[in-house]
């Protein structure tokens, strides 16, 4: 066991097992309840014969689909949930049996293998219907296109495409050409007219504004919640807990319940801060996280950090549904604001902007170091993360790279992971003069 100069334990199993007192941890329970309800509502809608859309986390135009009363299933979300509940391996094997390689994104494999014709739709989460339409929002991930094509060829689902240009001008930071916004906005109008035909519901800009007002409210509170990570000590884990909190901003944005949820979250975190409560017994290390988490061993993996009383102060993954630090919704320009939202998904930012965002987090959130979780089957996130490390090390920012997968449990080695993480904290402790 590692100890401080004063003999106090730097690392402890009690810290690893620590749970935030219930009265300060109601937002997690509430989000689980709301997510469960969301899954039940979708299954009930499918049972009544309603047309089901599949949507993607990055850049999903949920406000528009709400307008047309179309229930949306997010295969990324059901895949991660299945994995979290320990049910991914049979789906990996079923997909591989159909010709998918071990090198394919494991979201795609579980997403395709869970529903007919490969699977039955019965999952540890309940029934997941197959898609009637698949809304392809090509933002931040090229594999989205290939994934949606799989659904098309396996199930006959019709693809509604929205092409979202990458934020790609290396000479001008954050520069988005006008032709990009116009192109996305034009495509949104195109999808709207297709949805009008499909549902018989007429498009109402006024109603869309109303929906977006709830979205903007939820979005602002979501940002306030995450920015609490700037406090020293931080009342929340801006990575491990934020990943729970981000479900609703993706799944159910645009209604009062979701907006209320994020107010509730901000209140709870405020109460935590006032009571001096946080995600670990104390705050010894402050970390910024880059990358998708390990879902199959989520709690075990988190505990490897908790046992060092380390808290995530900020993370990039909770920004996949939009870089909340940077972007604000403007309900007065409904189509344009949705177009801009779709452009500013984290992985749709170029690598220079991604590295700068991480550097900003290190500075603004007073972090001790960066942890990069490089997942093997997601190259959108992972390709070039080694370059981030070289960049940060060049600026004397301690950086750890660890590898596993977000869904496939076969890529997780607890012993190896523990050794790497422990060695990182040992050197951080030395650097902070804790030893």
């Amino acid at each position, binding site marked *: 066991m590692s100890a401080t100069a004063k003999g106090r334990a730097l690392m402890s199993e009690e810290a690893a097992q620590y749970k935030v007192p219930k009265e300060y941890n109601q937002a997690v329970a509430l989000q689980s309840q709301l997510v469960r309800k969301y899954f039940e509502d979708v299954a009930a809608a499918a049972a009544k014969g309603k047309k089901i859309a599949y949507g993607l986390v990055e850049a999903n135009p949920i406000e528009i689909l709400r307008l047309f009363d179309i229930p949306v299933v997010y295969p990324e979300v059901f895949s991660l949930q299945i994995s979290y509940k320990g049910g991914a391996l049979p789906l990996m094997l079923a997909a591989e049996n159909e010709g998918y390689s071990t090198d394919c994104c494991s979201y795609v494999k579980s997403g395709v293998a869970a529903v007919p014709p490969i699977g039955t739709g019965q999952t540890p989460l309940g029934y997941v219907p197959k898609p009637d339409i698949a809304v392809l929002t090509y933002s931040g991930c090229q594999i989205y296109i290939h994934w949606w094509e799989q659904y098309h060829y396996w199930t006959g689902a019709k693809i509604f495409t929205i092409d979202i240009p990458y934020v790609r001008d290396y000479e001008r930071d954050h520069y988005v050409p006008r032709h990009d916004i116009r192109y996305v906005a034009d495509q949104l109008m195109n999808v709207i007219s297709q949805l009008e035909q499909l549902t018989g519901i007429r498009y109402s800009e006024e109603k869309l504004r109303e929906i977006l007002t709830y979205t903007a409210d939820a979005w602002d509170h979501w940002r306030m919640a995450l920015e609490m990570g700037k406090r020293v000590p931080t009342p929340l884990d801006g990575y491990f807990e934020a990943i729970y909190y981000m479900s609703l901003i993706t799944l159910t944005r645009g209604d009062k319940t979701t907006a209320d949820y994020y107010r509730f979250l901000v209140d709870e975190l405020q109460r935590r801060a006032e009571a001096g409560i946080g995600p670990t017994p104390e705050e010894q290390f402050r970390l910024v996280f880059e990358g998708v988490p390990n879902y199959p061993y989520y709690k075990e993996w988190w505990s490897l950090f908790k046992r060092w009383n380390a808290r995530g102060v900020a993370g990039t993954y909770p920004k996949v549904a939009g870089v909340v630090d940077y972007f604000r919704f403007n309900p007065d320009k409904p189509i344009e604001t949705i177009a801009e939202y779709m452009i500013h998904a984290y992985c749709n930012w170029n690598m*220079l902007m991604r590295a700068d965002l991480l550097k900003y987090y290190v500075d603004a959130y007073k972090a001790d170091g960066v942890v990069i979780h490089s997942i093997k089957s997601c190259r959108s996130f992972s390709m070039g993360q080694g370059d981030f490390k070289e960049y940060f090390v060049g600026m004397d920012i301690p950086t750890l790279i660890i590898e596993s997968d977000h869904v496939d449990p076969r890529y997780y080695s607890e012993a190896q992971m523990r050794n790497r993480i422990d060695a990182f904290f040992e050197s951080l402790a030395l650097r902070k003069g804790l030893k």
Partner: protein
Amino acid sequence: MTLLEDAASKEPLELFREVTEDSYVDFSWQRRWKEETGGRLLGYFPVYFPEPIAHSLGFLPVNILGASGYIELEKATAHTQSFVCSISRSTFELAATGHLDHFDALAFTNICDVARNLSGIIKRNKPDKTVVYLHMPINNAVPHAKDYLYAEYGRLVEKLEPISGRKLDMEALRRSIALYNEKWELQHRMEQLRIERPWLLPYDEYYYALRAGQLLPVELYVEKMRSFLGEVEKRDRKQQDKIRVLVLGDFCEQPALPLMRAMEDAAYLVYDEAIIGPRWIGRVNEAEEDPLMALVKAYTDNLRPLTTRYHPLIDKQQHIAELVKDLRIDAVLFLVPKFCEPALYDFVIRKLALDRMHVPYVKLEYEESETTFENARMTLETLAESIIFG
């Protein structure tokens, strides 16, 4: 002797082989071209790039196709992940070790997440280099895609003009398009030759001839290519008893030539996707009033499938069925670069169609630096024997 005089004096195949081998790491041919002509160099990553735009602005557009195992990966090992394809890693190594320094600009397009991120990390490590990333449209069935791509090509022009000191001139662009159309015609003629009489043109000659088109000035290339094809068409060689194989998956990373030779021992590889971009684009309409729009339409209205470009109106399964029928294919060889997800997903889509049609296929994965090909040869041989002997 100047570089161009030297090139003119060489047999086409000798020149094609020489520039191909030089392009694995050194690009010394292009460096000399730049020194002697004062022109500008633009390096572009696969799969497709609108070469006439760069050409009309005084650039020599050069396809960067990875180091084919001829460079030790050192910097790339630290900066890129181990689970990405080898073309991206070796291209990073080439850039990081200064082998691409004489290129005035590097261009990438949205073929996959790996190439996309590669463009960014090259820029971060080479901040003075102009790195252009073009987002090519995927929603090509809507009219807005054309306006968008037109503006995107405009952005490319804005990046390139200050480097060459030339302004885009529509007449010059028209002439460039005509030259690249000639290149396309010749490559198409070679493609047809391999479909009809593959025994006349061995794979490695075909490959050198294709790749040289991505490395030489187009004016020189069309001249050499014309004489090369004239010679090949006059050859008198005997057809062998081999099955006809369609090769899919090699559209970006380059399989090692010895691997392809080993495959060719077992079968006629009548069609493949090697250096597919310039072949895929087809003939650009020279009669279109606005030549930039002609280039746009050649891309957006192209209904031939390309793994790295989505088009809502394309049916990939129907296309492979037609290909198998039209090219009288006995078997399909999926030749997939290790870790190349686009190829891995298209494999499943196409395999489903082949299963329905009872067309035999095999899937092999490759890496740039591979040196043993025996297993691959045996796999294809076994398949060929099962077809020939029932």
